[in-house]
């Protein structure tokens, strides 16, 4: 029975191979290093999609494997973006300020430079002082640490509160949604210290890097692919072991796990925090490619979309999450970007910019009702794995437990 991890999980190898191939092809076709068939902006879209796939993996871990429908993971994603955005913005503004001050006769003092940066960054919200949360923004290293620490800490504190009081099921979902809403509303304030609804901008410019966006976009694509690969590998390794067994148990039947002597709250907290950190890393890679982050990104609806991607891809299988996120977000870009052809009906023309959300909403209902396995179900078709016939019984008593049609033999 003792087989190697890869042998037990052939899908991991296939996935990594596909990811590597994809990255290679995009690189070859790109403007930065290759033949230039794929435009830089599309490279960025693809890079961003990889980040979304990574956060979807995190979402699948917490929802598909642990049974906690968190509507807060996009908040962690956004926070991660904010954390890296703070350094990017600070450093870039610093270079600009130093450059402009060096034109004057008297060399600037440190505090003059900092005041200048403060004025530049916080001018839009009528302030010039650095709030406390920017304390480490001058150090890339510390700010990179904050990318994981701040969302991680938020997840830890929130999770501790929520799990400790044994809030489960939809109540927990609503609570996480409330947390997301609170965070978004907080960031919308001008005195939140993060520029209110202006958000952080100009993040696509790497300070001190002379390379063109053509190249930078590829660097980010590679970094995103690497992060996705590592994240996927790590997630697959975690769920393939005994910890995976325990969290699956928590998903299907929390009480049983508890009576086996496992501290369910601790496990939930660990997974919640861990996935929050993955989400934050994904966000830290995403927003430099997007160029701008503002509180609207964190709105509860984004987190719900995340759940939608995972559900459409098929929850409880990591590749499902990746496929769902990639498919839906790329399709969404295609439809809302105006590239999709309109459908003339004679009396009315269906413009996809207007109707895409209707389609998405309804198809989501359809997936929930008719194909709970989502797109991952296609893989089951290929490998000829069927759902068990349990006469409508779920695989466990808990809200998050797998449904009859979701399971495979």
């Amino acid at each position: 029975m003792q087989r190697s991890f890869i042998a037990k999980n052939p899908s991991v190898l296939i996935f990594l191979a596909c990811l590597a191939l994809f990255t290679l092809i995009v690189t070859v076709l790109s403007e930065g290093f290759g033949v230039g068939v794929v435009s830089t902006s599309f490279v960025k879209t693809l890079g961003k999609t990889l980040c979304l796939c990574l956060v979807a993996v995190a979402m699948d871990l917490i929802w598909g494997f642990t049974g906690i429908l968190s509507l807060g993971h996009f908040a962690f994603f956004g926070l991660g973006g904010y954390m890296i955005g703070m350094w990017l913005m600070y450093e870039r503004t610093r270079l600009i300020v130093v450059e402009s001050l060096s034109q004057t006769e008297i060399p600037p003092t440190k505090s003059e430079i900092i005041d200048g940066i403060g004025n530049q960054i916080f001018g839009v919200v009528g302030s010039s002082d650095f709030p406390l949360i920017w304390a480490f923004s001058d150090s890339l290293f510390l700010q990179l640490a904050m990318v994981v620490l701040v969302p991680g800490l938020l997840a830890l504190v929130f999770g501790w509160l929520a799990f400790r009081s044994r809030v489960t099921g939809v109540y927990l979902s609503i609570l996480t949604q409330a947390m997301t809403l609170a965070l978004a509303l907080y960031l919308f304030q001008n005195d939140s210290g993060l520029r209110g609804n202006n958000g952080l901008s100009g993040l696509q410019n790497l300070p001190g890097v002379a390379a063109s966006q053509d190249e930078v976009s590829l660097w980010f694509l590679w970094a995103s692919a690497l992060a996705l690969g590592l994240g996927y590998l790590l997630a697959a390794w975690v769920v393939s072991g005994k910890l995976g067994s325990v969290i699956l148990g928590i998903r299907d039947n929390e009480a049983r796990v508890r009576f086996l002597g496992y501290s369910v709250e601790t496990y939930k907290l660990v997974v919640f925090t861990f996935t929050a950190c993955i989400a934050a890393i994904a966000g830290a890679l995403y927003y430099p490619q997007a160029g701008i982050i503002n509180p609207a990104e964190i709105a509860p609806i984004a987190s719900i979309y995340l759940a939608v991607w995972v559900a459409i891809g098929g929850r409880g299988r990591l590749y499902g999450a990746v496929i769902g996120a990639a498919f839906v977000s790329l399709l969404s870009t295609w439809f809302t970007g105006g590239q999709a052809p309109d459908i003339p009906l004679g009396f009315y023309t269906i413009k996809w910019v207007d109707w895409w959300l209707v389609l998405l909403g309804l198809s989501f209902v359809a997936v929930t009702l008719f194909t709970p396995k989502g797109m991952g179900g296609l893989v089951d078709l290929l490998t000829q794995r069927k759902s068990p016939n349990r006469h409508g019984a779920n695989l466990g008593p808990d809200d998050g437990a797998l449904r009859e049609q979701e399971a495979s033999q």
Partner: protein
Amino acid sequence: MNTLLEVSGVSVTFDGFRAINNLSFQIGDAELRAVIGPNGAGKTTFMDIVTGKTRPDEGRVIWGDKSQSLLKMNEAKIAQAGIGRKFQKPTVFEDQTVQENLLIALKKPRGWLSVLMYRPSTADLEKTANLAQEIGLLDALSRKSGELSHGQKQWLEIGMLLAQEPRLLLVDEPAAGMTPQEREHTTDLLLEAAKTRAVVVVEHDMEFVRRLNCKVTVLHEGSVLAEGSLDHVTSNQNVIDVYLGR
């Protein structure tokens, strides 16, 4: 024989309804005990109290050689202290294989870090195989437990309890819904288990209890009505009134 678990003067009220009323109960090491009583007597609630699922309004629950109070511990801690519990309905992890079910129950450190780093050793795999043999599921080791029959799930759950190596096993109506053959197998399992640890079996079925051949406690309206051998309690007039009369 020293006392393993001592419950004394415990009462629980749900919305004004006294489910457990000044209940006292003792069990020693390696003792097999049957608890019987009509529906709603409070048998399951009694187990809930011992395993930390329900907090009593008053009373003491003392455990083990060090006389720990169980009332201050949560379910996981109590389970780690050595009390295993089987629910009325079979509850196994249906999306996982029999082997995974047994491995998860195996007595090992329960902290998340050690669980994360844990990879089953050959000895562990052997142990699960032996357990599977014992419960008659050796052939089904790599099958998903959701596919097992009702009786097999009950055994798997007992197997998981044994894998936990508890000092006290609380078993709630293990034979419900089983065929006579399956019941026999279950009895054997329990008798075997009781050789090395204390076992409390809740059961309705007198035949089943008779086969266990052990001391019997009769619960009624949340307190102990009678205690002793099966013949002794069945001849008790109170018990006859409660069980057979009315």
